[in-house]
């Protein structure tokens, strides 16, 4: 199944690249959303989720024709909570555009909502590029009664906040050397190992000055050690990391996070959530069965949801080939809240990881170059140059064999080194710089955002992967089948039961949902009035129907008094899996009705 889905998805076509500059990026996102809202031919509509803190529109795109008879189960995709993750926004938008273009079969029976860019203000921040993706809010991040008075500074005016490495810092700087050059890769620093007799040589800081003259560097403001602002993925009320820089003064502090939460709470038909961002719950599924100190609030997932997560994880890994993702604390994240409080299976992914973390056969392969024109017959084959290797000799252009990278930084550096010529830089070599306060030092290091965003050339490929994953997930959503069984128990006394079965390959609700009780259970209601009921409540409920086995079936039963020939109905409602009605006419023979 996966192969066919994947091949189907591969035909989605090429995604337009986004302008990399910040404000232009946000304008580009908006113009693509506007274009989607004007598209015809497929079931797509665009609505306002809310306005951002600074008044920018935040849209929610609906994909699907939503016919009345279709199960309501829907999937929500959220991207762009953190401006460090442009790839998520690009893939979310690309996915919508591809769906509009290709009109996949699921549009007729399923609904997908997409919030492609939750935090436009963060993406639109002007100035040098930093490793910060937060909503910019005035903040005294270092608690000195001054607001953002000492951010990082682009001292060398290259457009990036890089790093400063200071060799043997003088005591007057207040800095302490703790690092040495990595002997395997001198461009990198690592902690000195006293056991090996190493003497620390370097201190490292984000690029910048001590703007407020307090002896500290970049301690309050964007790009600094305490960046301030609001990290939307630390601001949801699930394990809210209160008092941590970026977590906010209260959960759901900003209109962005509040509107998303309120939308989710109001839409009971959500069967699953996909998040494109910093977190991963797909490749490494969250730990199951561990609770917070209250003993009831899961830190990861419920034990009974493990099988579901494992099944979806297997599918995701088959489709994307991703075998490992960076570990990011999920406290206060949207994905953590959506699972533990909303009670919805939530699948978070960074979408793109360093290629060595992707299985070889699933790695992005650039399109084969156009074959060169057939050679013109040449009258004379030239002699090889004098320096050409003789048979058996090593080629002279062979580079010396490189050591395998050992740690994450080394692997990133190797990745950037191996990018084709002309690619945007991922690492800037150290260059000497005379710092007005620290004296001679070097500026360089990893380029901000380069390690969280895919090269532009890969976005189309990533869209195809996520389209395939989405199609697979939609194929698994729960659906109901029901049958009724009638028998006469005596004169004017009847026994009616229903067998209601989940035919999907996901449960009607996650185990956490039964606990969270936000969404109504499956309810089976008989049309007989309570006064005529002998056994069985008029309304009978079940929290969830699992996948396969007896747990996938619910069998409510009623015994009641009624006249022969009367028509009795059983109304079955489920906000996620849909509604059914069974009708039986009371007659002597055993009857069966199915829907």
């Amino acid at each position: 199944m996966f192969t066919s889905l994947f091949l189907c998805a591969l035909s989605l076509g090429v995604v337009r690249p986004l302008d990399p500059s910040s404000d232009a990026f946000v304008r580009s996102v908006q113009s693509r959303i506007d274009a989607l809202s004007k598209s015809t031919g497929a079931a797509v509509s665009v609505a306002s989720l809310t306005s951002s803190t600074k008044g920018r529109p935040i849209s929610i795109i609906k994909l699907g024709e939503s016919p009345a008879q279709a199960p309501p189960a829907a999937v929500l995709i959220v991207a762009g909570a953190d401006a460090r993750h442009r790839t998520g926004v690009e893939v979310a938008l690309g996915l919508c555009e591809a769906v509009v273009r290709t009109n996949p079969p699921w549009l007729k029976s399923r609904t997908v909502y997409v919030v492609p860019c939750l935090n436009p203000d963060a993406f639109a921040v002007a100035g040098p590029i930093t490793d910060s993706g937060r909503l910019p809010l005035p903040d005294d991040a270092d608690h000195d009664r001054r607001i953002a008075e000492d951010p990082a500074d682009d001292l060398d005016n290259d457009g990036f906040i890089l790093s400063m490495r200071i060799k043997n810092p003088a005591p007057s700087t207040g800095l302490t050397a703790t690092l040495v050059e990595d002997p395997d890769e001198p461009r990198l620093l690592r902690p000195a190992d006293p056991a090996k007799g190493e003497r620390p040589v370097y201190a490292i800081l984000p690029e910048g000055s001590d703007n407020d003259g307090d002896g500290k560097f970049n301690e309050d403001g964007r790009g600094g050690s305490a960046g301030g602002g609001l990290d939307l993925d630390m601001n949801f009320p699930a394990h809210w990391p209160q008092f941590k820089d970026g977590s906010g003064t209260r959960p759901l502090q900003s209109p962005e996070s509040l509107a998303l939460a309120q939308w989710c709470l109001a839409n009971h038909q959500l069967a699953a959530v996909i998040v494109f961002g910093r977190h991963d719950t797909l490749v490494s599924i969250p730990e199951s069965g561990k609770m917070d100190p209250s003993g009831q609030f899961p830190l990861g997932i419920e034990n009974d949801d493990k099988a579901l997560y494992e099944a979806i994880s297997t599918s995701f890994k088959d489709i994307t080939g991703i075998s490992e993702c960076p570990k990011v604390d999920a406290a206060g994240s949207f994905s953590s809240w959506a699972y533990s409080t909303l009670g919805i299976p939530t699948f978070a992914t960074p979408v793109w990881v360093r290629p060595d973390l992707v299985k070889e056969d699933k790695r992005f392969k650039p399109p084969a170059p156009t074959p060169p024109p057939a050679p013109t017959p040449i009258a004379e084959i030239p002699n090889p140059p004098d320096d050409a290797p003789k048979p058996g000799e090593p080629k002279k252009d062979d580079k010396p064999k490189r050591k395998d990278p050992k740690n994450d930084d080394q692997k990133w550096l190797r990745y950037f080194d191996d990018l084709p010529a002309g690619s945007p830089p991922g690492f800037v070599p150290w260059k000497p710089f005379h710092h007005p306060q620290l004296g001679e030092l070097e500026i360089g290091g990893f380029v901000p955002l380069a390690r969280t965003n895919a090269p532009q050339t890969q976005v189309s490929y990533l869209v195809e992967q996520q389209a395939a994953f989405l199609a697979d997930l939609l194929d698994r959503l729960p659906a109901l089948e029901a049958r009724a069984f009638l028998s006469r128990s005596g004169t004017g006394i009847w026994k009616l039961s229903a067998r209601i079965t989940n035919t999907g390959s996901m449960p009607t609700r996650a185990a956490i949902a039964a606990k969270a009780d936000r969404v109504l259970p499956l309810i089976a209601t008989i049309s007989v009035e309570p006064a005529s009921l002998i056994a069985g409540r008029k309304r009978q409920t079940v929290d969830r129907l699992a996948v396969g086995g007896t747990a996938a079936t619910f069998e409510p039963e009623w015994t009641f008094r009624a006249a022969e020939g009367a028509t009795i109905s059983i109304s079955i409602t489920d906000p996620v899996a849909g509604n059914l009605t069974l009708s039986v006419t009371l007659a002597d023979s055993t009857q069966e009705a199915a829907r």
Partner: protein
Amino acid sequence: MKLSSLAAAIISASSLGTSASAQSDVPSKVPLEFNRYHTLAEIDTALQNIAAAYPDICRVEVIGKSLQGREMRVLVVSNSKAGPDSAKPAMWIDGGIHANEIQAAEAVLYTAWYLTKHHGHTPAVSKLIDERAFYLLPVVNPDSRDAWFTGPSTPNNFRSNLRPVDNDRDGLTDEDGPDDLDGDGSITQMWKQDPSGRWERDKDDARVFRRVPSDKPPGGWTNLGEEGIDNDGDGQINEDGPGGDDMNRNWPAGWLPNYVQFGAGPFPLSHPETKAVADFIEPRTNIAAAQSYHNAGGMILRGPGAAFREWAYPETDVRVYDALAKVGEKVLPYYKSMVIHKDLYTVHGGFVNWTAETLGIFSFTNELWTPQKYYQRDGANLGEADQWLWRDRLAFGQLFTGYKEFNHPKHGKVLIGGLNKWSSRSTPTFLLEEECHRNFAFTMYHADQMPSVYFRRLSVKEPTPGGFEIALEIANKGLIPTRSEHARRNAIGRPDLLRVEPASGSVLLAGELDSWDDETPMLIDNQPGRCLVPGGVPGKGSGVLTRKFYIEGKPGTLAKVVFEADKARPIEITIELKPQDSTFSEPQ
């Protein structure tokens, strides 16, 4: 040297005004009686009348609207001629977040009434209003207070607000609540004669039903629960009444969802009422104390609400709480100082947990009224006979609705009646004023212990010509520090700030002294003229703030020293650069 404490500068004429004798009658421009309960409309009117009658010392601010659109009014009480309320340490006092706990709102209204009428008459009260600010919200849950007074209810309802909640998870909200079938304004009990019923009626007092022990024969009566019918025809009675959220579980301090904390609401501050209060309090960093009145049980409660949040109450803060509550236990007979999770029950997301744990405010919840006060004797457990004696002889039967027969659509002939909504939890009206006053008195003590700082010692030395060493000691008249230890540890709010500004020269170094005689100060940062004080000034009896500054300046010129704190009024002193030693007494 000129000591120009701003505190000294703003002593108003009113605080020096006529001193009333302790028991003299001080009339209010807004006559109110506290031997009866006030409806929401009466409280609202009284609050506005007080603001209109005492415009120099109070004003009304509408902070938001309830779910049903009722305006929520905070009375700001502070002498504006002695400085804006925002520049003074302030106390938040509220009531009625649980609307059935009706005397809580009365205690807040009493506070407004008593404070305003005594200003200018009673020096201790005048001083409070001059030097402190009070933010009073009598009813946090106005919709439900109105419902309690105007509709049928019980001593326990309406606790929640009236946001419709689908309590029975049938897709409908609030569709089958109790019904006042006998029309007495209360929801009482339904009883049915039943040969196998496990209740019996007292032979001597037919008002009393008793459960029959399981090893005894049936008693002939079955309890059918609160009076009501099956409004939605689902075969059940009273399974989904009005509301369901508990606004005192909706605050962002250890908030947990409904499946852990019943009534939590969909997310922290999800209700218009709680959000309005939070939006008012959060930016007012001058709030240093909070009291949120509830009923019942005679408790002076502090957090944490859960054992695993003990970290938010470090030992130094607990000592302050204990010292305050100790006075509370004295002025409030039969009240006990308690910790919510240890002595009551676990609460996640409570209001005072939010003010204390998220905002660093020393906060209490008093649970007003205790049955021990029925007979003003020790021993909480009143026997059944004592309770009926109270109801019959002191309440003159007003707490009980006699049983009436009712033809119930489902159960047939039933009896309806029993203890009515006034029968428990609420303070009897003839004791209400005392209940309000004693709680008010404790809360004013709490307010009086908010930080009030002053320069206590000063020393200037000139070890080298033009090189001065200034040592300063700042003390606090209040038990409450300018920064709680919890606030310091978690960087809540802004640290205090001590600035030294010499008219000539500059501040070279600043140091922290362990004691006045410490000769080896610990240098504190790179901005010696602008010292941040994250730990603030300790409360009275817990230490002082001592700093030393090394100044290069022209002898005889002046240096200004200013201390600023979010939760204390600023103080400043102008010092002449010449050798000197001074000690200042605690200002009155």
